[in-house]
């Protein structure tokens, strides 16, 4: 068997390494099993080819110019800069944060390809070679061995394998780092524990931390804007306060309840931090949290301080120092408010970033407990702090497991225990829990919307999740039956929103989406009107 693309082809001077075609992609279940049921794929515009990297698959994740060197000297400078970055990834002082996991994954992969079929992107693409989870890892491994190890320098490709380091290799590798959602399903099945997701993460870091190259949505409009303005959504503290007032009015209008949302209340037990995208795109989510927390008598507050009202931490996807900076700000806000603990709302990556990954950038006065909202919500249901009527949620519901909250953090059961209590038609996707598939919006993809990247996300990255959703609802796929995908994560919701829109699945199949707390409030006995807006 021969394939059209091999490892060394990453450096091949050509317009585009592969071209995706609709007919090659993984087949979808009914009603999407017939031609014409989903939009065709498009070609990148010619003007994009001049400024951005379209040489991989024609799609553009890195929406900052990455121009081709005009001379050999310029190309050499690029290669040297890249190798300098790679050396720093392998250096104790510059990359203590991930040195050990990275070295293990570079050194010990047996290339057995056991991981391949665990990758939803590889499968959804119709097994395109460049999306094989080992492909980008092997490219980086070969560069490391060939250029930075004594054995590689002496024995050449006999020990490193064939690889040429040129502009094409570097540019394509930069894009390729953004064809993995860092879901780490591949690592779960690896007999040696090699982590291809981590290698993608480290490549992203190399480009960001050494060369200042990262998608705008993650860096300039992401972490930088977050630290400067207060939120990656550009929401300012004043804007935040206005939205809180709006949410209070909205709660009054929809439920009749007079709820004063606590903001900047010192000495509360909990500082609750939401993904600020909720305030702008799904204000019913923070509204539902406010209703539940107030009705359950929880001591809590929100913060209106810079960064303190936005739980996101895009640094976790591409840049360790940005991760540390945002985590420090979150904790600083909590310290000033003198709360006992920070609780993260329905945002998967914020869960992982603040509770798990950033756990080891905090010390001394910055070290305070950080937890998930899920056990608190389950506690409300379990202890019957609020009366729920499951009949109010008597429609098909399935649960999406956000990778960051579930596989990467182990918060698995509280959310499904709630659904089992309050949703009589709850059904699981397959596979689910820690073996779930990513929504396709992971690692920043949900918010990366430049040029044609959303097309790639909708066609390839979210395809497996869409298949799972259709399969979970196959017994009630008729559009007249309204169905609900519960996605307790802002970025997952964003990806699912775009997916449903792309495939017109709300119209064709009656599929809606939303968070967990909305379902809880929808089931509250003393709220008369439905809280969820699919009715």
């Amino acid at each position, binding site marked *: 068997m021969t394939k059209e693309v091999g490892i060394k082809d990453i450096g091949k001077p050509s317009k585009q390494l592969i071209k995706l075609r609709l007919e090659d992609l993984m087949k979808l279940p009914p009603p999407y099993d017939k031609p014409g049921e989903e939009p065709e794929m498009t070609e990148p515009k010619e003007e994009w080819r001049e400024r951005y990297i379209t040489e991989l698959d024609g799609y553009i994740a890195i929406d900052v110019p990455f121009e081709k060197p005009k001379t050999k000297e310029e190309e050499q400078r690029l290669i040297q800069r890249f190798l300098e970055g790679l050396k720093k990834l392998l250096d104790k002082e510059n990359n*203590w944060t991930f040195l050990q996991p990275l070295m293990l994954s570079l050194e010990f992969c047996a290339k057995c390809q056991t991981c391949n079929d665990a990758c939803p992107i590889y499968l959804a693409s119709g097994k395109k070679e460049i999306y094989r989870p080992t492909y980008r890892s092997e490219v980086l491994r070969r560069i490391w061995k060939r250029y930075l190890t004594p054995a590689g320098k002496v024995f050449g490709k006999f020990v490193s394998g064939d690889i040429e380091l040129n502009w094409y290799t570097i540019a394509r590798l930069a894009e390729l780092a953004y064809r993995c959602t860092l879901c780490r399903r591949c690592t779960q099945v690896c007999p040696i524990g090699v982590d291809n997701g981590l290698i993608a993460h480290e490549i992203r870091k190399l480009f960001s931390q050494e060369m200042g190259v990262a998608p705008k949505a993650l860096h300039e409009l992401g972490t930088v804007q977050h630290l400067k303005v207060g939120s990656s959504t550009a929401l300012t503290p004043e804007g935040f306060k206005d939205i809180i007032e709006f949410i209070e009015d909205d709660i009054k209008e929809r439920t009749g309840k007079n709820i004063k949302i606590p903001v900047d209340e010192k000495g509360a037990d909990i500082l609750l931090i939401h993904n600020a995208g909720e305030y702008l795109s799904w204000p019913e989510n923070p509204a539902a949290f406010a209703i539940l927390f107030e009705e359950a008598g929880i001591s809590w507050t929100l913060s209106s301080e810079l960064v303190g009202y936005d739980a996101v931490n895009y640094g976790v996807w591409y840049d360790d120092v940005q991760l540390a900076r945002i985590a420090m700000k979150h904790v600083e806000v909590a310290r000033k408010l003198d709360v006992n603990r920070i609780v993260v709302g329905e945002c998967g990556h914020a869960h992982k970033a603040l509770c798990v990954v950033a756990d080891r950038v905090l010390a001394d006065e910055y070290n305070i407990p950080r937890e998930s909202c899920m056990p608190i919500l389950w506690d409300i249901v379990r202890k019957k702090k609020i009366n729920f009527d499951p009949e109010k949620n008597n429609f098909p519901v399935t649960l999406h497991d956000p990778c960051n909250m579930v596989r990467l953090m182990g918060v698995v059961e509280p959310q499904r225990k709630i659904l089992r209590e309050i949703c009589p038609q709850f059904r699981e996707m397959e596979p689910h829990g820690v073996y779930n598939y990513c929504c396709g919006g992971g690692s920043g993809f949900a918010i990366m919307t430049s040029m044609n990247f959303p097309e790639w996300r909708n066609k390839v990255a979210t395809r497996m999740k869409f298949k799972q959703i259709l399969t979970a609802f196959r017994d009630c796929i008729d559009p007249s039956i309204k169905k609900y995908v519960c996605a307790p994560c802002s970025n997952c919701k964003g990806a699912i929103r775009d997916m449903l829109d792309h495939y017109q699945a709300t119209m064709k199949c009656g599929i809606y989406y939303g968070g967990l707390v909305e379902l809880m409030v929808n089931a509250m006995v003393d709220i008369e009107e439905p809280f969820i807006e699919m009715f």
Partner: protein
Amino acid sequence: MLTVLQISSYVAFAIFVLVVLWKFVKYATMPIHLRWELYPVPHEPEHEHGGSFFEHQNIWQLERKHDKLNELKEMFEEMLFIKRMFLNKRDLWIVSWPFHAGVYLILAWLALLFVRAVLVVAGIHGLVPIADVLIQIAGAVGVIAATLGCLGLLIKRVGSWELREYSAGVEIFNLLFVLVVLLTGLYAWIKFDPHFDIAKEYMLSLITLSKMPSLPEPIVVHLILLELLFIYIPFTKIAHYVGKYYTFHAVLWEDAINKPGSEVEKKVKRCLQFRTSWSAPHFAGRTWAEEAKNPKLDVIERWKP
């Protein structure tokens, strides 16, 4: 007077042990990394559904419980049966598992030879016949399983595009080298030493530092190749058992909380004093602690040719 072959056996074994130890030390002395565990984590009491202590409130006040027994079970299932490959790549497991199981049996055979020699020296002759039976079983099954497995792995590695394309020449060479050692061993066993009497005698000579009478040439060739393999292994990926220990125990299952005053916190504080030299404009060449507390954000520029 010891023979050159005997001396080289000590040297090969010593190099093997020392380099493997050095590799363990290299990974053991790396700085603490950010938490990067992956669920299910088998020592979590709620490992059945992949749960963690984060499923509870007030986690710092919780007394953490570890299901060490389940961690051992998971570890041994993976070590002895290569469970993840069995579940996810059966066509390769069919050859990989016999190879690995065969190697384990050969290592057991070597250990049994050593134990038998110690029993003989110590005069505990009653147990020697038991050792002889075990040596016969472990040696025979081990060399056959490992040889067939290794041959299968080589055929797969060369014959399958997805394995061949991702392999460097050295990875094919490694399998070839191991196969040659196994084949010479197989030949020596069948032709010259079916009951491993020479092997037992050789081990005894090594233990007692006594000279070994001359050996048949094929056995000498096999021993030389085996010694070279012992020296070679720790420098190659064949020693992936070192990596496997650390990937699981130091990364995927490592979930210690950084509580105030803890050992983790002490290590973190040391790492935060490391100085960065990243070149992107949002770095200023300060320590991690300084970089994190006082972000440099006012310059946005990127690499240009």
